[in-house]
């Protein structure tokens, strides 16, 4: 399949581990043909060239300082399509654990009396700063889902991100439910598409892909309580990757940022 026009694609990173871009590199191991379908004009982690003309921008990482907002807006002005790549860009991710402590305390804990040297603010997902057209969820993203999303974008379609819970994926893999093994799991409220990789390898789903659009949150919390979790335990589980999403609720509870609890 030869394309007369190869869309120009650029990759950018903000506050993140760059693991999603590495997953992109790894996905090329199985799909080197992808390089024939697009023209990568900027990918700092892997190439020296820095093209400023691109149609699709993949952004990894959260926005964690005021000065990054201008860079994000610059990208938005140039790209026809902006894709949030992975949990940090999509949801704020582990970076937003910062919300659980007063910002000043966090800065002083790491940098002591030099805290003022380092610019930071409340972490936010990319869509809190600029319009995001699509998000590819996951920490890290799933290789196959990334490939499927790129194919969809090339065809002018919406990326096929499921809106049903991880439990569906888990059943398809014929896993024994972790609740039957005496563990707990956020699979019932978390967006699928990861092939339930964590439960498959014996670990609870931690909602890295964010919640489905209509999660039965109250029942989920009730089930967790029935399995012996205190409110504090439940909040801990709910805040691994999704502190930014649940922060409003936390703020109405006792664990407000600033309460130092």
């Amino acid at each position, binding site marked *: 399949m030869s394309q007369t026009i190869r869309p120009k694609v650029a990759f950018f*990173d*903000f*506050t*993140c*581990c*760059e*693991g*999603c*871009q*590495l*997953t992109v*590199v*790894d996905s*090329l*191991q*199985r799909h*080197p043909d992808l*390089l024939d379908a697009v023209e*990568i004009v900027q*990918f*700092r*982690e*892997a*190439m*020296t*060239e*820095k093209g400023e003309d691109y149609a699709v921008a993949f952004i990894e990482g959260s926005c*964690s*300082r005021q000065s*990054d907002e201008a860079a994000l807006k610059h990208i938005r002005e140039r790209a026809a399509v902006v894709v949030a790549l992975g949990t940090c860009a999509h949801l704020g*991710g*582990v*970076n937003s*654990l*910062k919300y*659980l*402590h007063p910002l000043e*305390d*966090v*800065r002083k*804990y*790491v*940098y002591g009396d*030099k805290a003022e*040297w*380092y*610019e*930071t603010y409340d972490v936010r997902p990319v869509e809190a700063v600029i319009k995001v057209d699509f998000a590819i969820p996951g*920490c*890290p993203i799933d290789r196959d889902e990334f490939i499927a999303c790129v194919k969809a974008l090339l065809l002018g379609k919406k990326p096929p991100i499921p809106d049903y819970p991880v439990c569906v994926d888990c059943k398809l893999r014929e896993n024994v439910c972790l609740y039957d093994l005496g563990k707990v799991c956020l699979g019932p409220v978390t967006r699928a598409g990861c092939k339930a*990789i*964590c439960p*498959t*390898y*014996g*670990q609870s789903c*931690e909602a890295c892909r964010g919640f489905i659009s209509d999660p039965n949150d109250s029942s989920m919390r009730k089930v967790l309580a029935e399995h012996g979790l205190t409110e504090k335990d439940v909040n*801990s589980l709910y805040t*691994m990757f999704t502190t930014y999403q649940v922060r409003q609720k936390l703020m109405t509870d006792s664990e407000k940022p600033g309460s130092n609890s």
Partner: protein
Amino acid sequence: MTKRIDIHHVTRVEGHGNIVVNINDGVVKDCRFDVIETPRFFEAMLRGRPYLDASHITSRICGICSTGHTTASLRASENALGVELSKQTLLLRKLVFHGEILDSHLLHIYMLVVPDFLGVGSVIPLATTHRDVVLRALRMKKLAGDICAAVAGRHTHPIAMTVGGFTHFPTAAELKDLQSQLINCRTDVDATVDLCATLPWPQFERDTEYVSLTKPDEYAFIDGEIKTSDGYQLPIEKYEEVTNEYLVPHSSAKLTRHKRESLMVGALARFNNNYNQLHPRAKEAAQKLGLKPKVTNPYLNTAAQVVEIAHCVEDAINIIDQVLTRGIKFEKPAQVNLGKIGADGCMGVGACEVPRGILIHQYWIGQDGNLTGANCVIPTNQNVGNLEADMKVLVPQIMEKPVDAMRLDLEMLVRAYDPCISCSVHVMKVEKKPTS
């Protein structure tokens, strides 16, 4: 002579860093490597989290060495909580660790460094001009990732590794398959050594203090003591005597120094300190590459990574032999007894040699099993001071060259360290002074 080099965001490295060199009338005025990554604050965020979450959080410090962060994190918790590991757990931890070392070294050698020698900006054009080389790199890298995936679910952000052991186990058939692929991979290892033996590594020498872990019985990657090439050896709990982090106003990450102005960690330090424990095939590779300890050319850190590739492939083959001979068993993770923790809580240090050098995690855990404090010392931070010291010696030696050639020499030096800047958990923001 007046020259100015300002490489904003060095490419083909992990994370964000700038090279700044200013030469006025033949005098070097500025010579810096600025780390401009956003501060991450992981240590502060770990406080209040259950100890079982710590490795899941800290693996997100770095996508390349997430298995390394997981390992250091687990060892810190295990040492704090007094958890003993089974023989099988130790073997599987080493196996997955080798997978990550291979993956990271291959990425660095083939995708980040080799393009410089072939005069291209990335690995992408090589897919057309040097297809066999690129296919070899991808083939080897896929095997490295498959090792991680078989043991821990995936390479970036491993799943099945937990305090006290694993939550999932590879089957004997999967291990046998990996082993036969590793045996076949020897040809690719040889080809990698041969390729790197032909590369014109830049000539530059600057002796420094090389720091790595060391163990009496094996080439150390996990646990052990801290050893320096200046003859010091100390337990990992005393890491602060070596890493000795300090802040400088002009730039970059928290820096480290021990007995000299700077120190170097990573493949070259491990090679220099623990050469005798390398597998014979790795020593052969070293000979072909012209490496004999002690090597003081920092550009050859990449060549030392090639030697480690040969070592890790052979050691992984041996480990799989041992696991298969013992028979792979489903083992529950070792039990943790929080009741043993006193009112003051407990503390543990975990150390391992990630691709870029010594990584330390130190945790304080309270009676409820939640972390009350954490410190993470990242190899790239330890190297930044040494990199700058190299630059200060290198720049006067190359300042007659055209600016583009100087730029390339400096960028190649930065890449030789394989910096993992996003990993630098605590870094400084740099306000660059406008240069008149």
